[in-house]
């Protein structure tokens, strides 16, 4: 039971922060299928900077965890500029842009990882070894039955994510920036008429989605993957999109969706393990979150409502 909660949380929270990134972008009116690419590229930049610094200074890569997080956010944000420029400046189709960015991220980071490994470190490897981040347990609280598991073996990034998520909620719903951002996704004409630059607002929203996705990707690399390789492109970005849609583009319900996915995943793994099934069956249980996605689609598609101007290219002249 405890492992289900512990593992579930450590999977759900990075997913959650990527989904928040998606919410920012989509609430501003830009469809974002590029979350997958953002999180992968962000993780690549984060991992690369950690590996390079560890190599240069001889520090243990564990101690560079926070540096890696910082760089992953910068990397994700930098990469998201492509989506922003394509969709906003050049008014490209947002779906196509997203899909292309995902393919680009996979190809580019796989290639660069192998090249950097052979040229800089002289090893023939397609991954950057990172290891698993240290965890901590809050002694008193961990002894509470059931919920104690929430405070046991916690990754530091889980705390960081919670703090950032709180701030993201505040920014989106309490500040004027957030108000304008949400209005841009509902009726950009009203924003324009109010004298606010729709393009700028949407641009910042996409960059925020890149920043948060990069962070989420890095957390996956430092936990379940323990390295950076092309395995980071497991569809987490798409799962995050599913979560935000089930969450009706709102932060708290999206958290619930992410937790559901997280527990489905850890629960699946737990069942497979406890039944001592051969590894091929473990893979079968791993599809649980995705089957769940399909089922939820049936129930949630009707009642959910996307931002009204989502995916609509804003053209001032249109009446």
């Amino acid at each position, binding site marked *: 039971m405890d492992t289900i909660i512990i593992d579930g949380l450590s999977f759900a929270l990075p997913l959650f922060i990527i989904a928040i990134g998606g919410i920012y972008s989509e609430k501003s009116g830009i469809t974002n299928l590029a979350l997958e690419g953002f999180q992968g590229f962000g993780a690549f930049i984060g991992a690369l900077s950690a590996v390079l610094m560890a190599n240069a200074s001889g520090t243990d890569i564990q101690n560079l965890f926070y540096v890696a997080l910082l760089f992953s956010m910068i990397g994700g944000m930098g990469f998201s500029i492509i989506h922003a420029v394509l969709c906003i400046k050049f008014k490209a189709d947002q779906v196509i842009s997203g899909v292309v960015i995902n393919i680009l991220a996979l190809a580019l980071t796989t290639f660069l990882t192998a090249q950097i490994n052979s040229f800089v470190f002289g090893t023939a490897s397609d991954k950057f070894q990172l290891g698993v981040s240290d965890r901590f347990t809050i002694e008193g609280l961990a002894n509470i039955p059931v919920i104690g598991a929430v405070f046991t073996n916690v990754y530091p990034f889980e705390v960081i994510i919670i703090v950032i998520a709180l701030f993201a909620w*505040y920014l989106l719903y*309490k*500040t*004027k920036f957030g*108000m*304008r951002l*949400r*209005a841009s996704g*509902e*009726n950009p*004409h*009203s*924003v*324009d*008429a*109010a*004298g*606010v630059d729709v393009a700028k607002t949407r641009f910042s929203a996409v960059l925020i989605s890149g920043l948060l996705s990069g962070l989420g990707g890095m957390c996956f690399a430092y936990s379940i993957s323990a390295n950076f390789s092309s395995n980071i492109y497991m569809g987490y970005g798409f799962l995050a999109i599913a979560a935000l849609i089930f969450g009706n583009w709102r932060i708290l319900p999206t958290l619930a969706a992410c937790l559901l996915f997280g527990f489905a995943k850890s629960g699946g793994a737990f069942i497979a393990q406890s039944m001592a099934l051969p590894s091929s069956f473990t893979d079968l249980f791993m599809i649980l979150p995705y089957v769940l996605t399909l089922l939820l689609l049936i129930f949630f598609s009707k009642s959910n409502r996307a931002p*009204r101007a989502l995916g609509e290219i804003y053209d*001032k002249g*249109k*009446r």
Partner: protein
Amino acid sequence: MSDYIVEMKHITKRFPGIVANDNVSIGIKKGEIFALLGENGAGKSTLMSMLGGMYEPDEGDIYIRGEKVQISSPNHAAKLNIGMVHQHFKLVSDYTITENIILGVEPVKKLAGIFPYVDIRSANRKIEELSKSFGLEVDPTKKISDLTVSMQQRVEILKVLYREADILIFDEPTAVLTPQEIDFLLGIIEGLRNGGKTIILITHKLEEIKKVADRCAVLNKGKLIDVLDVKETSTRKMAQLMVGREVNLKSDKNPAAFKEEVLKVEHLNVKNEDGFEVVKDVSFTIKSGEIFAIAGVADNGQVEIADAIAGLTKVSGGEILLNGKDITNESIRKRTEAGISYIPEDRQSFGLVLDFDLSTNLALKQYYREPFAKKGILNKEEFEQFGSSLIDKYDIRSGQGIKTQVRSMSGGNQQKTIIGREIELQSSLMIFVQPTRGVDIGAIENIHKMMIKERDQGRAILLVSLELDEIMNVADTIGVIYNGQLQKIASSESLTTNEVGEYMMGAKHE
């Protein structure tokens, strides 16, 4: 220093294929209601959009309070205290009234001295005060999606007032309002003027100008025709200047010659989405060569009757017979083919595909059959030929001929497009729902002429209108509806406007 608060000198603005404003010069005095009169497409809105910062003129200068300015954005216009109340509301339907009003100029407070946040509470209070002081009472915490059209317009006005505008531009403000709401709005506008604000009123409705405006500029096809003192000018003269020719508001028509029965509606009942009966036991007939008008106050079931006959709404009881054939449960296409033409109330949603070009829209009811399509393959040439011939026949004006996107056309020309298309069907029954809503005088005259011409050619015509004048003017037979029931059916000669009005209010029973 001139005594004008706004001066526009030699303004020219061109769009692809059209000169929207051609060397227009106007001056507006502080504290007056200045009306801009002109038909649809005369360039009124374009001229004012340059004042509101949406466009910049190609030639000419703008002076505000004596100073030459280049208004580059709506923001800049707001800084000059110019505010525009748009015809098409620019509101976020998910937001509250307050949120919509403060968007872009949000009052910000700081939590714990660090975290800035939008101070909705004080904004709510401020807007409540503001709305009361101008007689525009609203509940600032209500969402836009819960408001009626006229309430939404109040929000647009408050938006401008909140930004402390003292030059207010109203773009066709009454196009979407009922007569009572129009009176109320005109009262508000006068109140604003008396409070020292300068008002520019864009409209094509002469009565409104006569009622509130001090001076009035007439535009025609992008050119300034004249600036008039409203008190000293007759409505007739204004109409003539606007259209560029003599206008006859009273239609001449030959006496009706009724022939065989075309439409027979028997004991019709219709329920709305919520299951309420909105049409109750309605029976009437329309003969060939007859214009049958349903008069009534809005939302008394008249639109539902038209929709039920056209097949847009399901019938819950009764029968509809067209040329003796029962069509009560037929599909819309079957009805069209059996001989029904339909000009819907909401032309943009139900009458046209706004993003299609003109020729496609004109062929919208016939595209699937020969000669427009052969074995399911569309014949583009046929579309174009048909389109071109209708453009000439019905004088549909557009920027790029048959290739024009219908969205970019003026309301009056959109309506001509629909009416032309429906007449071409040669149906035995034509249904007109509010055909002259939001179109200008010249076009109204035209539409009435077309209806009478079709009647004289032996069609049966059902007219649903909220304009009593229109009904008295063109109808042969009038059915007055109140609360879903026909109160009275009689020939138009036997009824006076007052009598019809009384039946409409449900005050008079047979």
